Each structure stands twice: as C-alpha cells, then as structure tokens.
C-alpha cells in the first residue's frame, strides 16, 4: 500500500485537507483532486509555464512542485481571477487585444502577469517581455499579450 501524507492547502481562499501520495504533483492535485481544471499542463518539465499558479503570491510552476510541499501554503489559480460574467481587468484586456487563440497557455500567462502588474503597475514593453519570457505561447507571437498587459495596467491603475 502506498504511503499517504496529510496535506492542508489553502487554494483560492478555501482550505482543502486531503491524504496524498508524496509524489503527487501540485498540478495534478489542483486538477484531479480539487477539479480546478483551469491550470493546464503543457510539458511537465517546467519550461512552458502553462501550469503557473501563485504560491504565497509568487508565480511558480505547479508541475515542478509536489502537493506535500504546498501544505500550509496559499495557492491561487486562474479560477480566483474572474468569472465569464465578471472578468478580471487583465482577462478583459486579453480579450480586447486578442491576446489568446487556443487559450491553453493563457492561464499560465495570466498567473505570471497578475503579480508582475501588482509589483510594476506601469511597466515598459521590454519589462513585460522579460516578465513573460518563461511562458511559451505557440499561437500569438506574444505581441498582443504585451499589448494586453499594457492595457490591463491602465485598467488596473484607474480602478
């Protein structure tokens, strides 16, 4: 019998207590234990950034973290941003600027940009470019993602 470990993880403001295998990835925990399917897994080796979530406020790759490591910590996923009826300003800006196509990598970009824009409310294009350099998008060529981040920075600072 595989040994299970208790974890207590605060995800999007709610505390979840589960018994998990030591090797269970945080990405699989979020997706398959909690049913939070917005976090996408693109490469499982920490390069593409699609699975990015916030770990105590910092953007991390959930495919490179075991869920036991997240015990006692706060995780935020894309589901914490906005709903289809009430999008977060960054999500609104992504739609306005056509910064997503297939949408698979998008949650990772959003979760990378949310803390970035909170810390840099008025970034230059080059700063945005650096910030998203660890996230791969195959569809857009990134230009519209940078435009969306700039649009979001305007929206967020005017709120």
């Amino acid at each position, binding site marked *: 019998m595989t040994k299970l470990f208790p974890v207590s993880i605060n995800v999007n403001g709610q505390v979840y207590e589960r018994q998990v295998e030591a090797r269970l990835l945080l990405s699989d925990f979020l997706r398959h234990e909690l049913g939070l399917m917005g976090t996408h897994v693109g*490469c*499982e080796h920490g390069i593409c950034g699609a699975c990015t979530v916030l770990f105590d406020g910092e953007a991390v790759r959930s495919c490179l973290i075991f869920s036991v490591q997240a015990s006692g910590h706060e995780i935020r996923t894309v589901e914490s941003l906005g709903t*289809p009826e009430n999008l977060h300003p960054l999500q609104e800006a992504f739609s306005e600027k*056509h910064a*997503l196509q297939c949408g698979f990598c998008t949650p990772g970009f959003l979760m990378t940009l949310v803390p970035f824009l909170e810390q840099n409310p008025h970034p230059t294009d080059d700063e945005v470019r650096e910030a998203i350099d660890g996230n791969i998008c195959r569809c857009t*060529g990134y230009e519209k993602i940078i435009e969306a981040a700039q649009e979001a920075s305007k929206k967020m600072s005017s709120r």
Partner: protein
Amino acid sequence: MTGKYFGQPIKRLEDKHLLSGRAKFIDDIEIPGMLHAAFLRSDYAHAIIKKIDVSEARKHPGVVAVYTAEDFGDYWKPGPLQVPPPTAIKGSQFNARTLVPIAKGKVRFSGEPVAIVIAESRYIAEDALEDIIFDAEPLPAVIDLEKAWEDTSVKVHDDLPSNLAALVKQEAGNYEEAKKQADVVVSRKLYADRVAGAAMENRGFVVNWDERNQEMVVWATTQAPLPLRIAIAGKMNLIENQVRVITPFIGGGFGPKIMTSQADDVLLPWISMKLNKPIKWLEDRRENFLATTSERDQVHYCEIALKKDGTILGFKDVFYHNTGAYDPYGMTVPLNTQTHTVSNYRIPNFYTEIRMVFTNEMVVTPVRGAGRPEGVFVMERMMDAAAKELKMDPAEIRMKNLLKPEEFPLKTGIIGQDFVEGVLDSGDYKGNLVKLLEMVEYEKFRKEIQPQARKEGKHLGIGVVAFTEGTAVGPYEGARVTIGNNGKVSVATGISTQGQGHFTVFAQIVAEQLNVKVEDVKVITGDTNHFHWGAGTFASRGATIAGTAIHNASVLVRQKIFATASKFLGVPEDQVELCEGSVCVKGKPEISISLGELAGKANPMRGAVEADVKPGLEATAYFAPPHGATGSGACAIIVDVDPETLKIKIDRLVLVHDCGTVINPLLLEGQIQGAISMGIGNAFYEKIVYDENGQLLTASFMDYLMPQATDMPNKMEIGHLHTSSPLNPLGMKGVGEAGAIPTPPAFVQAVEDALIEYNLDIADSNLNPSMIFEYMHRSKK
C-alpha cells in the same frame, strides 16, 4: 466587403470561458470508473523484437490490463492510408506502408509503441511500464536521406526492394531546352530542416464504449473528427452513427493533430469495448516529440537558368523528402513543395522530382506550412544565388520575375495535394512587393541606414522575399444553420477548432446574413452528432471552405425567413425586411414578427402543411471548390548581428499579405503574427535533431527551443492587400500558414547580408549561432 458584422474586428465569443479557466479541454474530461493508459515505447530506432515480457506488469497493483501486438489478434493491422496519392500524376510511384498501431516483430523508429498498460491511474500505469522487459536486437538505423535512397542501404521495410516511398517527376515546359538558351545557370544544394508542431496542449484521447446503447463516444484532440469517426467505425465494425466523436477545446493543432491512425486512435476503442470501461490517454511532451508527427527535412539539388538581365528561363529541383518510418499521409507534403517552389514567379520551364524515402525516424505529416515553406525556401535561396551571380539587387531580380495580376488565372502545369493541376486564381504579387519595399523603406535602408551602420561597425542586414500560400483546398465542407424558438441561431459544421476563432468568425458570417447579434449565434464545431459530413481543419480551409458553406446555408435560411414571413405578415416578399432579431414590413416597423416566433410558426405541431415544405427556419449547405485559392505576400527582415557571439536581434519584420476578403481583421492579425513567430522559431531556434543511431536528441523543450517573447521583434509590421478570390462567393483565401512560410528565407538572406564581408552561402533553412559560426569559419578558409 465590410458589413455590420462581416469584416469587423469583433472580440471573440469564446474568450470568456478560456480566460476564466472554464473551457473544457481533453484532460478535463472525467468519467466515473475511467481507466488510464500509458505506452511503453522503444528506445531503439530499428530493432528486431525478441521478447516482451509483461507478466510482472500484469501483477502490479492497480493494473487492469497490459497488451502487446500479439494480444490484439486479427485486430492488429496496418492502418488506413489517410491520404491516397493523386492518380493524376502519370508515371509516379508510391509505396504505401501505413502506420502500424503497435510494433510487431520489428521496431522502425525510436518512440514506436511496443506495449500498452491500462491502470486505475496514470501514475500506476507509468509505474507498471517499468516492470515490462523489452528485449530487442538493434539493427543499423536508416537516417541519412541520400544514403537511404541507395539500393545498398539497410531497409526500413524488408518487403520492399529499397527505401523508396515515392518517386514523382513533374515537368512544365522543358527545362533542359531552356537551359541551352540561358546566359547563366546557378546550382545549389539546400536543406530544409525538421521542426515540430509543438502545440501547447499535447494530444489526448478519451473513449467510452456504452454497451447498453451500443454506442462509442470518443473525445479527441483531432483536427479531423469525421475522418476519425470513419476510421474508428471501420476498425470496430460499427456503422458510423454508432461512433460519436467530440472535440473539446483543443490547445492548438498546427498539423500533427490531423492523424487518425496513431496507436491511441486504433487501440483504445478496442480496449474500451473489451473491458467495457472508459479509458483516457494523454500524451506527454516527450511522447509528442518522439512519436507524434513532425515535418520538413528535405535535401534539394536545385538549378536555375537565367538571362543576363535576370529573367528566369527555367528551374530544376530534384529533392529527397523524409517520410519517416511510414507514409500514412501519402505525398501531401512533398507535393506542396512542388507546387510552391515556383508559384510566385514566371517560370516557363520547371522540372521537379520528389524522391520520398523511408527512414528510421518518426512519421512526417504536415506542420503549419506543410511543404510550402520548403518550396518557398529553395526558390528564394536560388533567387538570392542568382542575384549574387548576376550582381543584381535581391529585390530587383524578384520584381522582374513576379507574376502580374493580368496573368491570372494561371495554370501551373503541376498537380498538387488536391489532386488537380495547380491554378493561381488571383493576386497582385508585384503589388505585395512594392508595398513591402515602401513599408520597410528599402531604398533608405540600402542607401543610408546600412552604410551608416557599417561605418559604425554594426552588422545590419536585410532580407526580402516573396511567397504564396496555397489554401482553401477541397474536397468540401458543409454546415447547418437553424433558428431556434428563442430567436437565437445555431450553426453546426464538421470541422474542429484549435484556437482559430471559428466560434466568432462563423457567427459573423451568419449574423451578417440574418441580421442577428453576433453573440446570439452559437457555433458548434467538431461534434459528429451535430454535423456528420466533412474533412477537417487543415490547409487554411476552415474559414474559407466551412465558412463558405455556412454563408451558403445562411443565404438559404434568409430566403426561407422571407418566404415564411411574407405568408404570416400577409405582404409580398419584397415588402419584408430583416430588422435586428425580427422580420418587419418595410416602412411599417410596428408590423413585425420575431425570428423566434417565426421559427415556431415554420414548425407547426398540428394541421396540414404543403407537401414539399421542410420544417423550421433551417438549411444545410455545402461548398466544394474546383481547386484551392492562393494567398500571397512578401516579407522583409532586418537583423542586427553580433559577429562575435552571433546573437541576432531582429530590428524590423515587415510582412505584406493578401488573403482576399477579411472576415475579422483582429483575428487575421493574430493568425499572421502567430505564424510569423513559428517562422522565426524555425529560422533560428527550433530544430528536430536525430543522431546516426536514430536517437532523437531534441525530445524536450530544454533541447527543442521554442521562440520566446524576447526572441520576437518589438513589433511585427503587417500590411494588407485585398484581391478577391473568384473561387468562392465571399472572395476569401486562407491565411493560417502564411507567416511561417517566408520567414526562414528572409532571415537567412538578412544574416548573409549582415555578414557580407564573409561572403556566406547559407544552405540551411534553420540556423543557430554555432551553425553560422561554422559557415563563417569555412568561408574564411
């Protein structure tokens, strides 16, 4: 043409669900009792299978079943030929060796599946793979294309006399005669290197055999839901409507998701029926690199014959094309190369020969561009070589030879992937280049910017190329448009969607005809229970072919609305007009009926109706073009090269494009920009590399470099021309692959120009700093 909705930069309807993490992708599908599959794949590229011992794996707790090829009995058969070769090309040879679902007796590429484990979780399934003993005797691997062609080579398929997969010779005019008239003949050996589709979502497949209803439901990340349904039904001996294929949101396609005969497609339906259980399989990134398909990888021997003034008399191209270990996709890719090699320019004499070879590598099928980038690369490189030889400016020699608008429609004499002789339908190829040179300020760059930069010790270079994109090919697509009793409109079509924005552009087409709000049009793609005819999403044909079918169906529904409303409003049809969401009498807007109410009246539940009346406000229509429509464009890249580190910065990238009528300019820009990034990736970052033993050296994103945000130019400058295609009523041409096609030759030309003092003669489409260093080193010697 621009209307209230058609031609407008409308935000996408699908965005809200994607952005909020609520859109359903393949791995989001959960069915109670679902089992999980994992494949054991061969590490050897070429080997005789001695023994596969799965006894320990079968005992692994949580494992439900383990299968090897023998366990499938008579069900094990090589898959169907997904794309047959065109019979119209006389004298062509083609040896079909289609994919086997799981290796039996022999392994032909590294990554080929040899066993499959079904378990309660993916973790357990992968654990059990470790328990399998796979014993094989390695054979020498067939890797080098030219050596593989020789009769003395080791063979990939023992039952064939050689590794010849196809031999196709096509000629328009007479090249050898033309060569005799030429002032100069320039020849080169060129390489188009191999790249991955690398969609951010890997492939996935979920299947549930419902024994009570005798129905098989399949969720798949396929670009071709209806061909997949036909394939599964055929294998499982079911009639097609016992198989329902549903495509959830798909995280990018780019070509490799067109396959319907991979191991998962074939084996999982059988296993699901056998175990009477739902099964999920998700490909991981390593499997995607090893065993899904990829493309390019050609070696070209080219010759161009010209007059002294730069007029092209003829072109000859004999090329080796790697099809990998099997050739399930026929000759689509190298045929596209043949049709795109000379499609921009007036070339009266053209000889082209495909030598398609089997190798011990993963199978080659289309990746965004699909043979077109290779054809355009060799043509543009030869134009560069000719310009050097004749001491002409690269832009000037192109301008001199580009086809003129009055030459269309132009029969090319070369049969393409759509099985008919190529016809260039329309365009203004010179106009593209003129606009490009203006936008990039070519004269100013040559006369002021570049000389000044050189004085300052900077290495700035420019590349200027032209291209075409054959799009909108047949056979056909169809659609059904229905007005609901709530006044909203549903549209169902047989293609599937991988992020192109179909939910929005198709809604725009319908909304324009029926004068309803775009958000009131619900588009359904890729569900075979909603629409069961169609070929799929490939070759930039979604918006053009399915879009035209949707337009045609909308026109029919509009006619039915007028006929029905005229009856119920008691006025002649010409007195009726569409108001938003309703039908009213001209000049008397107070007399109207909502579309929803009219839909109800068109579908009476009691009483008599006229004999030939079809119920509802609904129509189904199809569209089949005689041949593909050809988009065109031109591209310029200015690079700043550091000759010490060979770090390359793209200072400017300008692309002028003509895809005819535009449905949504915002989404059009997205398509072009995305393809440009793939082209930049292909030119300087991405490359699939096999070693001499057939081991893939680039099976992760650590080794296979994807273009990142900091690799892109600050701005992609895009210009548009609009020449309508005469081949469809809306005048559209496709655009999906355009940006990926001209980028590598423009980049290579720009690098050569930046390092002009080294007099480089670059033969490769995919560069990297160490390759350029080697070119410089060789050149110095």
